[in-house]
């Protein structure tokens, strides 16, 4: 289990992106993180992975401080070295047990071609393969479904469900609420750097309706004026 207490992250002295946040993420569950743009999702994930230094608070995994060694992280936009092939990229991740060919049967990537020629979706698939190759107990995925085709989206869904049964702790952000509803055991709604509400699976649909209703009301008045 990951336990986050009183986490605060600031950029400089003024801009607080995560504000005294509390969150518990159980092992063997898939957790979703939603929020509007700028709510602090990516900052929270960066802090969890140690890319951002928290101003205060604690992050623990199994009662000890959270360590980078435990986490596989998929950023929204992955960096790829120019002029290298997909296979060479995967070889950067040291896990000899990972059977690249077998896994690639699920992703259909031209691994011996240069990544420079890959489409956005192909690059995303390759980044996901890299994260899977790391095989760590915690998976943090920032917008993993972005750019994926329908088939790979379903494949990723099955992979994550499978990893969940292996007691991995999985945290996903996505702007596609339906993909999270379909996959997660718990969804956390982030607003202004704080968890506003955590919703259990049985309440997902009512949460979605409530959220959409709120958003529709917000835009209605403005749209009436504009159109």
């Amino acid at each position, binding site marked *: 289990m990951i336990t986050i207490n009183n986490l605060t992250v600031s950029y400089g002295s003024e801009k607080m992106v995560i504000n005294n946040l509390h969150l518990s993420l159980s092992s063997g569950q898939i957790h979703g993180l939603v929020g509007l743009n700028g709510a602090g999702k990516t900052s929270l994930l960066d802090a969890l992975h140690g890319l951002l230094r928290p101003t205060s608070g604690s992050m623990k995994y199994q009662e000890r401080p959270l360590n980078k060694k435990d986490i596989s992280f998929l950023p929204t936009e992955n960096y790829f070295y120019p*002029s290298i092939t997909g296979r060479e990229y995967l070889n950067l991740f040291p896990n000899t047990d990972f059977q690249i060919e077998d896994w690639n049967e699920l992703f259909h990537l031209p691994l011996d071609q240069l990544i420079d020629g890959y489409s956005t979706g192909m690059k995303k698939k390759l980044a996901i393969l890299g994260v899977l190759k790391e095989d760590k107990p915690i998976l943090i995925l920032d917008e993993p479904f972005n750019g994926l085709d329908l088939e790979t989206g379903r494949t990723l869904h099955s992979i994550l469900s499978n990893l969940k049964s292996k007691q991995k702790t999985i945290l996903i952000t996505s702007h596609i609420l339906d993909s999270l509803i379909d996959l997660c055991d718990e969804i956390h709604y982030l607003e202004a750097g704080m968890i506003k509400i955590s919703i259990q699976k049985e309440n997902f649909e009512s949460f979605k309706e409530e959220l959409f209703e709120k958003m529709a009301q917000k835009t209605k008045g403005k749209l009436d004026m504009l159109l």
Partner: protein
Amino acid sequence: MTIVLLHLRILQARRTISSVSWPYQLFLVALLILAITGTVIKASQPQGSIMLSFAFAGIIGSFHWFRPDYQFLRTYFIEYRWLCFAEYTVLSIPFLIAVLMSPNSYLALCYLAFLLSLTYLIKPFRRTSGKTKSLSFIPNSFFEWKSGLRKYFYPMLTIWLLGMLFSFQMGVSIISIFLLGLISLGFYDNCEPLSILSASRLGQRAFLWTRIKGLLFASSLMYLPLLLLFFVFHPVHWFIPSIIALVVLSYQFYALTIKYAFYEPNTKSSKNTVLLSLGALVFVLPFILPAIWVLTVRLYFKSIKKLSFYLNDYN
């Protein structure tokens, strides 16, 4: 892991070099031989080896400051600092061997200590400063400078102000011009989207001239105050910063023409990178400057040809 990454870097370099035509490859090999020879000769002189150490430290330092994969390395590899150090050491092998054979062999140790502290203490620049209002004086058509200055506003402002404030010290203005030039070289790295190109509604020649004028305008704004103050305090040595400014400006023109000669919307071509690094040798070996001028003229005509594919309808 270190071996895997270094092997990958060699593969990358080999593929990138093979992506340019053979005359450029030949030119690159010739320049490399020249650079290595120059390094060995310079290192053999006591004064030269000190200068060379600073030059290499500056080159590797700026490489570290701007490296695009730092976040990737930090994300996936716990030993990311060591990986950077190993890479910089391998890149410096010709210099290290040359300096070890020189009378100032202790410089090799100092240099390695510098590399170690660089990788462990200095975090490459990442965040943008978002100085939108204070840069509104730069016309939108000079978008490379606008975006570049926005990105490196504070480092550039600091260097510029230090250069101005300490211009009574001869070396400071020179170093400022050199560093500002070095930072601004990155502004021409990426090719803009096609929509920006066509938004100008200019034909290829007119478009390229706007870019050249933009470069001249922005560079003058940056270098002229530094040069003027230098002329006031050190009138006898007026030619030193002028030559440095000329070298930097020539390289910027070279970078601009490369960008458009191999323009592909929204990309950063590896061909551009290899040609840019090839031209960067001018900072170590300024006597190759005429070669850069010849190449710039050639690339100018190539740019016109390339841009005509995208902008011919506006003629």
